[in-house]
């Protein structure tokens, strides 16, 4: 069985500052890893995904994530946070392939504030 841990329930960050959201997963096979974002009253939107190749994967809106196999981590980063990044971010893992179920973390709420 797989699991995902997002240790930070809320992160407050100054606008323009860098952001890192932590994600650690547990899965015995080769994981398919995802970051989703949820804005208020909307469905989850895919930011990026990874399953092979360059361990640093680029996503939308300036986000990137790095897969570190030795640490079972897939942290999300952004160089400069904007107020519009206010949302809940979910890390997820699946076995991949044929319509596999996603296992989600508990989410991290990002709260940008004035510098």
């Amino acid at each position: 069985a797989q699991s995902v841990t997002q240790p930070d329930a809320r992160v407050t960050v100054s606008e323009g500052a860098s952001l890192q959201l932590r994600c650690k997963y547990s899965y015995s096979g080769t994981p398919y890893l995802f970051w989703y974002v949820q804005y208020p009253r909307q469905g989850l939107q895919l930011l990026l995904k990874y399953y092979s190749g360059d361990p640093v994967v680029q996503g939308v809106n300036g986000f990137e994530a790095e897969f570190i196999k030795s640490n079972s981590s897939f942290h999300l980063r952004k160089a400069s946070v904007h107020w519009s990044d206010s949302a809940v971010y979910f890390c997820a893992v699946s076995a991949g392939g044929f319509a596999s179920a996603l296992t989600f973390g508990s989410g991290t709420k990002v709260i940008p504030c004035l510098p």
Partner: protein
Amino acid sequence: GPKVLQIPSHQIIDMGQMVTLNCDPVSNHLYFYWYKQILGQQMEFLVNFYNGKVMEKSKLFKDQFSVERPDGSYFTLKIQPTALEDSAVYFCASSPTVNQDTQYFGPGTRLLVL
């Protein structure tokens, strides 16, 4: 981007009643999913569905739950009868034939069972 719609956005019903949650997936998508999120907890997989059949279901997918997509219309989740612990937000998702691993989510239906 592609949109998944869910109807209704909110539903309040009495325990023991039947409820049907409707999902309008992205057109041309063939794989469908339901997830459940209890307030303050993680979103959890319930079931996936392809070609008219349930492919995989979790332990949360109780006998009172059923899914179908009659004649290519809405993908539905029916709960009959409902219980208090069914109160949650239910998210529908769909994925395309290519890149099946990428799921597109709806905004959720907030179900409250009294």
